[in-house]
């Protein structure tokens, strides 16, 4: 009894102790009311800014169905010519995307295996170089490819677009494969080897099925990126028109109903694709039963492996790395400085303004997404809302999956004069578009680290007397820092490199990628070379920063 009273009196003392301000602040804001209101604000932001435009574009189509009917299908002069153009562009876009993904998959398998399972000197650098095309603005990339294949007299057109798309979708596939390969425990492969399976059989029956999700995620991402790409395609296309280019064209000619329809179709197809693939992934099984042991044993032979590795290395270098960075080798041309700095039309001034615009937009996009992205990631991981979470989690990927030109157009319609009328095309609208399509890039990495953070540590802190907010400030935040930084860099690079969506909403403002496209179209090659080199170097710097952050997180 005495002991109990002792404990009680001690507890009273604790209540009397004046807590420092920060702890009191935390305790105050740990109240459920504040948590709930933050949740509500975050969700409204997500619905309004990220999902709103997409819903609105469908609404527009429905409301203006008669106009569309009149302008697209039964134009007085052109009949259904626009519809024919759309159909053709869709076919071209899908063909290119499909072929590019197929080619990428074939090269990516061995690449991913080499980059994860082998140890060799310079692996880090190769790894970074393979990642790089993801960060470089596609306009710059496309220009570089144009110059390189121009050496071999390949004219702009279908095949050049294809070559370009193979290059910049490649890293998406390799990266996703690498992530699952790194996660897949070598133990299973060891087990299969100990049961007598030769290398090829192990890969087919064990590694491949376990990589399934990663392969499919990478393929979807690459496919949709290819489908929506504008910047490089504008440079490489010549007379061929893919769907995003057509949208840009319609938008330039202010044929809004036609643009709406095409954007709507693209968005619908992309979303359907996303959901059906997500749904079917689980059901697809790889054949694990039928085997040709002798054949696979022979296929597993060392020499064949050497040949394969050599071949893959050559293809990567010749088809992907060299074309991507060919433009840098041209920068030493003397005429460049002449044209950029001393030309009659002040190219340097334009470039400087565009560069500032790009950086400002990217930085602001990072800040806005940071403010709403962290609470959103928390909602997805921590809240116990059942099906609602699954739903939010799925629709979070939509901005990644749909072509950015179409998304840009949707945002233009929603916020612009035709919709709410809050913004005119220009700086703020570009910013809005960028916030919209980069949101998932911020949230995904944070979700990743949040899921892998240890709930136990947070519970430990709570049992030691920390309130919810204190736990967040002192324990959770430091441990998800890496994910947040990774998210910021991803958002920054994606925003910096975006062309399609920007063109649709930019009004009179120029960003760097758009400027490059403009200059290439105006045949101002030396200036384009200079601008491209600058952005490539800048992106390379960012990618290395990202990798350093990742590595620290991994330790």
């Amino acid at each position, binding site marked *: 009894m005495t002991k109990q009273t002792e404990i009680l009196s001690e507890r009273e003392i604790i209540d009397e102790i004046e807590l*420092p301000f920060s702890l009191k602040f935390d305790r105050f804001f740990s109240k459920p009311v504040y948590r709930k209101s933050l949740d509500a604000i975050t969700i409204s932001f997500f619905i309004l800014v990220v999902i709103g435009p997409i819903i609105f574009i469908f609404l527009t189509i429905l409301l203006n169905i008669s106009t569309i009917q009149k302008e697209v299908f039964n134009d007085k002069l052109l009949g259904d010519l626009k519809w024919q153009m759309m159909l053709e562009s869709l076919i071209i876009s899908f063909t290119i995307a499909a072929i590019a993904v197929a080619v990428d998959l074939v090269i990516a398998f061995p690449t991913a295996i080499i980059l994860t399972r082998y140890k060799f000197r310079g692996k880090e650098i190769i790894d970074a170089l393979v990642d790089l095309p993801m960060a470089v603005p596609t306009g710059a990339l496309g220009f570089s490819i144009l110059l390189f294949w121009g050496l071999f007299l390949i004219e702009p057109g279908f095949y050049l677009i294809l070559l370009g798309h193979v290059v910049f979708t490649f890293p998406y596939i390799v990266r996703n494969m690498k992530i699952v390969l790194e996660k897949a425990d070598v133990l299973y492969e060891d087990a299969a080897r100990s049961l007598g399976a030769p290398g090829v059989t192990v890969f087919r029956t064990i590694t491949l099925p376990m990589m399934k999700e990663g392969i499919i995620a990478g393929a979807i991402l690459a496919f949709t990126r290819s489908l929506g790409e504008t910047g490089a395609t504008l440079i490489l296309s010549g007379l061929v028109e893919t769907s995003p280019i057509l949208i840009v064209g319609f938008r330039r000619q202010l044929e809004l109903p036609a643009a709406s329809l095409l954007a709507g179709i693209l968005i619908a197809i992309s979303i359907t694709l996303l959901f059906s693939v997500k749904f079917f992934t689980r059901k697809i099984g790889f054949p694990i039963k039928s085997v040709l042991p002798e054949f696979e044993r022979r296929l597993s032979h060392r020499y064949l492996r050497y040949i394969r590795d050599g071949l893959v290395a050559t293809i990567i270098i010749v088809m992907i790395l060299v074309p991507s960075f060919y433009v840098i080798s041209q920068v030493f041309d003397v005429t460049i400085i002449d044209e950029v700095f001393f030309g009659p039309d002040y190219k340097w001034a334009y470039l400087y303004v565009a560069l500032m615009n790009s950086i400002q937009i990217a930085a602001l996009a990072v800040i806005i997404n940071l403010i709403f992205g962290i609470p959103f990631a928390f909602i997805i991981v921590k809240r116990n809302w059942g099906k609602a979470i699954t739903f939010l989690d799925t629709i979070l990927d939509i901005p990644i999956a749909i072509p950015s030109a179409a998304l840009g157009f949707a945002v233009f319609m929603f916020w612009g004069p035709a919709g709410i009328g809050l913004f005119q095309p220009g700086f703020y609208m570009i910013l809005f578009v960028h916030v919209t399509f980069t949101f998932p890039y911020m949230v995904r990495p944070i979700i990743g680290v949040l899921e892998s953070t240890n709930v136990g540590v947070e519970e430990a802190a709570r049992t030691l007397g920390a309130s919810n907010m204190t736990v967040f400030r002192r324990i959770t935040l430091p441990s998800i820092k890496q994910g947040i930084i990774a998210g910021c860099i991803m958002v920054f690079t994606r925003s910096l490199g975006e062309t399609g969506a920007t063109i649709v909403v930019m009004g009179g403002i120029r960003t760097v990628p758009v400027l490059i496209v403009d200059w290439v179209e105006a045949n101002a090659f030396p200036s384009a070379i200079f601008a491209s080199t600058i952005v490539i170097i800048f992106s390379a710097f960012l990618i290395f920063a990202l990798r350093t952050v990742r590595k620290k997180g991994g330790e």
Partner: protein
Amino acid sequence: MNVTKTFDDGKVLAVDNISLIINDGDYIFLLGPSGCGKTTTLRMIAGLEQPTEGKVLIDGKDVEGVPPEDRDMGFIFQHFEIFDQMTVWENVTFGLEMRGYEEDYIIKEAKKALKTVELLEYADEYPSIFGNPGLQKLGIARAIATGAKILIMDEPLGSLDPKVSKVFRHELRNLIKDLGLTAIHVTHNQEEAMAIADKIIVMRAGRILQMGTPYELYENPKSIFVANFLGETNFFQGFVLKLLGDGIIKIWTRLGGPKLFCNDYGNGFNLDDNIVIAFRYEDIYLFPLNYNFEKSRYDWSKMEFFKAVLKSKRFIGSTKRFYLALDNDDKFLSTKPGTFVENYKPGEELIVGIHQDDIHVFKAPDDLMYELSLM
């Protein structure tokens, strides 16, 4: 307390209407196989889960809605949950800081706690230099530094090497006793529970089967599961032949046939009841065939004797095991201390003795396999 906890909208009953009282200064174990609800119970006490029904009382006060940070309990985790971005010192002072103590007091208490677990010299290091035992010591220091009088432990030895945990568990008990703490310890390892508990609560499938001191549970198990779970036990099926009054019954089993007498421990058996008898490996006496019982100074009157063949024997250090078989080929086991002197050969016939009081009798359950499965 008297609580029920359900998960997933009531579909899974994790803990079903449990009542238990924990006294000040006791070292209590919640013991049971994986998934028996022991961790859920623990987390409800700590406030990391809320009971669906029922109440948890601490010092007579209902603590419903009191968040874990205000319950003033020290929690020790299986995976330590050390803050690895903080130094050892910062880990230990965290709880004190949260309570808003003055700096002098914090330094004094943190030093005391670190000294208790012999980690003071590592105060400025980061926890990554420690192996698992070091991390758990730090976890203990962190929990006791706040001055909490109740220590809650979820498999605190589960991540340690078996050899290490066998040494460490005694240190843990001594520390808790020396500090005069009330401790609640969850484990699935019965040996650990027997070794250091004051009181054990055996749980299975969300219910409490039996609670008591290790001695009570071991000497007087109330169910087949407890008899099997704590210690090593032989089981035989049979039925009641005769009631002899004074709580003595005569039973028929495959062990020794129709002649076994034993105490019914107040079970109130009736004639022809199906029963299961249980006896510990170490309660079996072994004698050579030519043993002269008259010469011995012991009283054999309450012993039951029968013959069995020694199939094989194994030396496992602190004990020796004897694998024995009856005429009808039913097998059972006997253990003796490792230093037990014998020269029995496999194949030899032996006289086996069991004291009547060492035979535990249970009503035959519907599903003996389930009762005997350790899950």
